[in-house]
């Protein structure tokens, strides 16, 4: 019997329903729009940015925000707004790549661990435990510090930090779903293991995985900034949110806008991602719709 791991039809329809549900959450929609705007602005930085982010112009140094320089200038006279746009390219692409990396590594590992159980599971979970015993930031610092401070290593390190968290979560859901009656039923009907895993398990885990990925995304953006702040990441003069904050420390009293700009941008990014995550969680969880509706009728 050929096992085509086709997704059941209601899987797609539940995604459609979720897509309809999402825009009803105002905070989530606003978060999504802001995040999209920041991503686009960063992606098209060469066209959007008013100045060269690297070129030094000492005559313009430490100028407060004005119409000319929306977020002011730094100690080399560089336009902070332009630096933020270019810095966003690194931060956000690191965030996205870490999400991808954690997904590719974490989900299969978690699925395998939860589905097969036994020794495989035991071994992998001890490994995950060991990873989780390290404070994540310190682990990333150690990895990046030892591998050498460059952006690929930052991505690798953050991915390695986040993947075990995702793997453990996926394993947990797999275990729960595996024991559920309907998987037994599917097995009794002669469905192949691959089919069971892909259709039944994945369908039940889409919501937690997607939500966890938004958490990974915001954690990665903050972690990248932290690493750059500590000097392990983007090297000067390349613009970077974290690195620029570190530089701004020397000009705290003279140029507070220098640290306020990256701080606020990171905060806005994380805020948008979190709101989006909350919205996705509600949208992907059919129980949440039902409760909201029943609250309405009961009242």
């Amino acid at each position, binding site marked *: 019997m050929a096992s085509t791991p086709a997704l059941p039809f209601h899987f797609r329809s539940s995604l459609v329903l979720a897509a309809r549900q999402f825009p009803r959450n105002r905070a989530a929609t606003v978060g999504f729009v802001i995040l999209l705007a920041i991503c686009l602005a960063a992606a098209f930085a060469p066209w959007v940015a008013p100045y060269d982010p690297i070129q030094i112009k000492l005559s313009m140094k430490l100028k407060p925000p004005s119409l000319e320089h929306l977020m002011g200038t730094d100690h080399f006279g560089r336009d902070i707004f332009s630096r933020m746009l270019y810095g966003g390219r690194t931060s956000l692409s690191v965030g996205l790549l870490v999400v991808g990396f954690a997904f590719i590594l974490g989900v299969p590992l978690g699925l395998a661990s939860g589905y097969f159980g036994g020794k495989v599971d035991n071994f992998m979970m*001890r*490994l995950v*435990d*060991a*990873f989780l*015993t*390290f*404070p*994540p*930031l*310190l682990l990333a*610092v*150690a*990895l990046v*510090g*030892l*591998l*050498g401070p460059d952006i690929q290593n930052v991505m690798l390190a953050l991915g390695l930090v986040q993947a075990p968290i995702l793997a453990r979560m996926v394993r947990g859901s797999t275990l729960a779903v595996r024991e559920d009656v309907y998987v037994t039923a599917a097995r009794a009907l002669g469905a192949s293991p691959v089919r069971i895993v892909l259709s039944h398990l994945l369908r039940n885990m889409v919501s937690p995985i997607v939500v966890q990925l938004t958490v990974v995304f915001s954690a990665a953006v*903050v972690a990248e*900034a*932290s690493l750059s*702040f*500590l000097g392990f990441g983007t090297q000067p003069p390349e613009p970077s949110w974290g690195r620029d*904050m570190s530089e*701004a*420390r020397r000009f*705290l*009293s003279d140029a*507070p806008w220098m*640290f*306020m700009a*990256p*701080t606020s941008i*990171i*905060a*806005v990014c*994380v*805020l948008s991602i*979190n709101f989006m995550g909350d919205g996705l969680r509600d949208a992907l969880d059919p129980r949440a719709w039902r409760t909201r509706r029943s609250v309405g009728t009961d009242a």
Partner: protein
Amino acid sequence: MWSYLGRRLIQVPLVLLVVSLMTFLITRATPGDPVQIMLGMQTSPEAATAMRKEFNLDRPVYEQYGLWIAKVVTGDLGRSMRLNDRVTSLIAERLPISLQLAAAGMLFALLVSIPLGVIAALRRNSWIDYLCTGYTVLGFAVPNFGLALILIYVFSIQLDWLPITGIGSSEAIAGGPWKHYSPFIIPAVALGTLQTAMLTRLLRSSMIDILSQDYMRTARAKGLLPWNIVVVHALKNAMIPFVTMAAIQFGYMIGVQVTIEYIFAVPGMGSAVLNAVVNRDFPVIQGFTLVIAVFFLLTNIAADMLYALLDPRIRY
């Protein structure tokens, strides 16, 4: 419960073994030669060989690991390659400072989150509830080092109320309680804000859940006084997840301190690891990660124990 504690404690060495093996592999597999970094480029080959021999770096990795573990069991974590100090004495110097900072951060988190979470739950949709929501949302979003810079700018530079340096310095310790503890305030707030946000949100939602429970109605039907109902009947239930979360978060705080220690030049565990990583000081990296892992594991076990202690329904 004691047998459960025993079983948990037995697992600790096992996890530590995996942790130490991982650190060992990561340090040995990554580029960068510690000897070269320590001695500089123009060193004589003899000196380099001598140092390699001293720190067993000339042996195969599994032998290095075996020798190291054998010593760790006796309580000897080796010597720093750079500072020529014993790793244990470095830890003895830095761990108390990190613990104090973490404790200060947690203290701040508890002082804010308990009243804020409770009042927000009792007065839902009031201004204090909105304040609570705004605070938690921002606490999650602003990274601690950004918050630290904001606090320094406002309270140290503009208002000149609080110092920003002096944690662990001898003159601060000699200068009385205010001199001793005031340098902790800004770092502790910056460090503890994320935990405050988490704990406030947790406490608010569990309080809201508990306030709608049937036994709260029973408590009111008994004619008990309002403070008694909130503190004894509601808070005692809400404290179960709260205390567990606080203990786990306390375990994390040593690790997330790195950025705060870096900004405020605090001689703690995080900055030590940071320097050791830059200098490839293998014994220090190994020793410190081990201690941090132990601390993390113990706080986690403590969290589970507290949970069982507070919730009569749980018996291990």
